[in-house]
């Protein structure tokens, strides 16, 4: 009797537990990286919370997965093991790699109708360049950035330069850099004119120089690189000369992560780094600073950078539709404005800039507009098949040239030969 009663109540409890869950709860996993300091992870988790409150039928599990590199490694490992997340943010340049591994799906199939089309067309074209392939959209721009030049207005004043005028050309940057480079009595440099960090992924800022010189690194299809073209060699020579000939930049490989600190400590009067550092600079720079577009040679130019949303294979249609709805929501103007304000990433849709939040923000902090205005000159970031490996050839060549191991032209020719070997299989 008692046993029966217990059994019955256990069954009832189990039933009520099932009933308590929403009828069609959709579970989503969402991997994201954080590449800049500050509260970026908290902002993403906060936005996800808000979404779930308004949509109780969806359960999203946001997983902070480390750096971009860690995230893509975790995502590919999970996908190969048959546990792909539905959503992940990864570098826009990983698109070809993810396509070659047959891991991702186009958004066009899930963002249907006029509305879906309008959403996808609502992003800046510069950001869509490495988000689309063969007429399909595989990436939705989210934490996108572009490099800009930060300059210390106090240092400009001390050097007798107009603190409101940043260098507009390559030559001006060298001239100003010479005035800004200070040495002490014993001949040691205490302040460098400019710093273009070169650790880890030197190709990115370098690509800015290449576009400015009027060249390009790839054919956009991911199958050809032009590492030894005259413009690329010219750009590399300029970069190397900054340290060796003009002596306005510290020699050797310059650390990426230490760059903001280096700027705050007044060791470099101008620095090139991502706009993703803007909020950090704004909060921590102990002097007034300006933000400018990168200087020009033949033309203005900068690469885009940063991460896109990707949609992964291996989930039910229901999950994928829910995933796309969430991505539509988080890239909508209001949410996107919160994200841009928290980090400094460039809002990827013109509509975001028309929100009250962004207008107020830009009024008090007009520097945020520079990156947006630079977008008209921006080109897609270097991306090819087997992207990480091909990019590493260029990174190694640049490191060898910067540290004086190899002459510029020789290093780049070698990188091109290695890239050709790998990419031949995709042509």
């Amino acid at each position, binding site marked *: 009797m008692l046993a029966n009663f217990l059994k019955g109540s256990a069954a009832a409890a189990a039933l009520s537990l099932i009933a308590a869950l929403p009828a069609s709860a959709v579970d989503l996993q969402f991997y994201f990286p954080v590449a800049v300091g500050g509260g970026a992870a908290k902002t993403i988790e906060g936005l996800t919370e808000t979404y779930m409150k308004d949509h109780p039928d969806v359960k999203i599990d946001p997983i902070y997965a480390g750096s971009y590199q860690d995230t893509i490694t975790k995502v590919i490992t999970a996908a190969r093991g048959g546990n792909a997340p539905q959503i992940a943010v990864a570098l826009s340049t990983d698109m070809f790699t993810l396509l070659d*591994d047959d891991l991702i799906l186009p958004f066009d199939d899930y963002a249907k109708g006029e509305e879906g089309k309008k959403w996808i067309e609502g992003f800046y074209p510069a950001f869509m360049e490495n988000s689309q392939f063969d007429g399909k959209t595989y990436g939705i721009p989210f934490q996108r950035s572009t490099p800009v030049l930060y300059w210390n207005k106090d240092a400009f004043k001390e050097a007798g330069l107009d603190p409101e005028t940043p260098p507009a050309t390559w030559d001006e940057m060298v001239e100003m850099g010479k005035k800004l480079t200070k040495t002490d009595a014993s001949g*040691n440099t205490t302040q460098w004119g400019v710093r273009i960090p070169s650790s880890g992924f030197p190709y990115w800022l370098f690509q800015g120089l290449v576009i400015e010189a009027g060249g390009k690194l790839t054919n956009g299809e991911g199958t050809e690189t032009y590492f030894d073209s005259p413009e690329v060699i010219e750009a590399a020579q300029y970069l190397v000369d900054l340290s060796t000939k003009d002596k306005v930049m510290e020699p050797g*490989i310059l650390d990426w992560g230490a760059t903001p600190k280096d700027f705050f400590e007044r060791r470099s009067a101008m620095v090139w780094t991502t706009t993703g550092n803007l909020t950090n600079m704004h909060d921590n720079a102990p002097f007034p600073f300006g933000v400018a577009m990168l200087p020009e040679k033949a033309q203005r130019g900068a690469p885009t950078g940063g991460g896109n949303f990707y949609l992964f294979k291996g989930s039910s249609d229901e999950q994928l539709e829910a995933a796309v709805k969430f991505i539509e929501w988080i890239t909508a103007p209001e949410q996107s404005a919160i994200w841009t304000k928290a980090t400094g990433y460039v809002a990827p849709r013109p509509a975001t800039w028309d929100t009250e939040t962004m207008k107020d923000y830009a009024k008090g902090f007009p520097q945020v507009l520079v990156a947006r205005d630079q977008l008209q000159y921006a080109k897609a970031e270097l991306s090819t098949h087997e992207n990480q490996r091909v990019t590493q050839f260029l990174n190694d060549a640049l490191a060898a040239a910067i540290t004086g*191991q190899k002459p510029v032209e020789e290093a780049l020719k070698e990188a091109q030969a290695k890239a050709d070997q790998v990419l031949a299989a995709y042509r």
Partner: protein
Amino acid sequence: MKIKRDWIWGWTLIAPALALIFLFTHIPALMTLWGSLFSTPRGRKPSHFVGLANYERLIQDPTFWKVLGNNAIYALGTIPVSMALALAMALLVNRPFKGRALARMAYFTPTVLPLIAVANIWLFFYTPGFGLIDQVLGLFGAGQSNFLGNAGTALPAIMVVAIWKEAGFFMIFYLAALQAIPPQLAEAAKIEGAGAWTIFRRITLPLLMPTTLFVSINAVINAFRLVDHIFILTGGGPDNASSLLLYYIYETSFRFWDTAYGATLSVVLLALMCLLAIGQFFLFDRKVHYK
């Protein structure tokens, strides 16, 4: 009959450990060897048998030879220095003096820290301009350094971190061995009129030989196994100047996703480690025991 039953007993007792070791060491090693004979699967292109093609590629890969050379320099540079330091520190803290426990702890601290944490500490030391080294050098009017950013100094900078981390660990073994040496031997030698150097060279050092063998095998393994600090300090750069074999394996397998070539490199590492360990045992084992 008795012998047969013992035999079954023995195998039963070691079976669990054996199963684990096969599952997590030997089977993966064999799978790696097998995998190195196939091509890397890429999306719609499945992997196929390529024989020794991956090994041919390895022989022609300049990066492989560079990291192998780096690893040789790394091993030759870190192992003798960290072992000598370990022995010196053990001798120092083996004598009675005030604050001995504190000194022992201080020497051992780097070992307790995870290598990633150690690397972050050293990253601060090495940072050009406002890092600790440059701040100290600045007091003497020296210019700034950029140890991690130059091809000639990146590898030595990495080696210093490894020595700093390893010496304390090896010291513990030497300390234990020193305490196991009967003090009568030294006393007897003193009566015979032997000096401190003779005692060290004729008594202490020979009696420490088994420990030295053990430590040296561990040191060799660690010289190929510990690469965590490279991730933080240089990422293998500039231009692979500070990359080691295992770091290159990681990059190939989990950044470039060239798993077949990663397996090929792993086989080389495995073979190298086996050769070194076997070599050390056979060459030294006969000579280390004091008879």
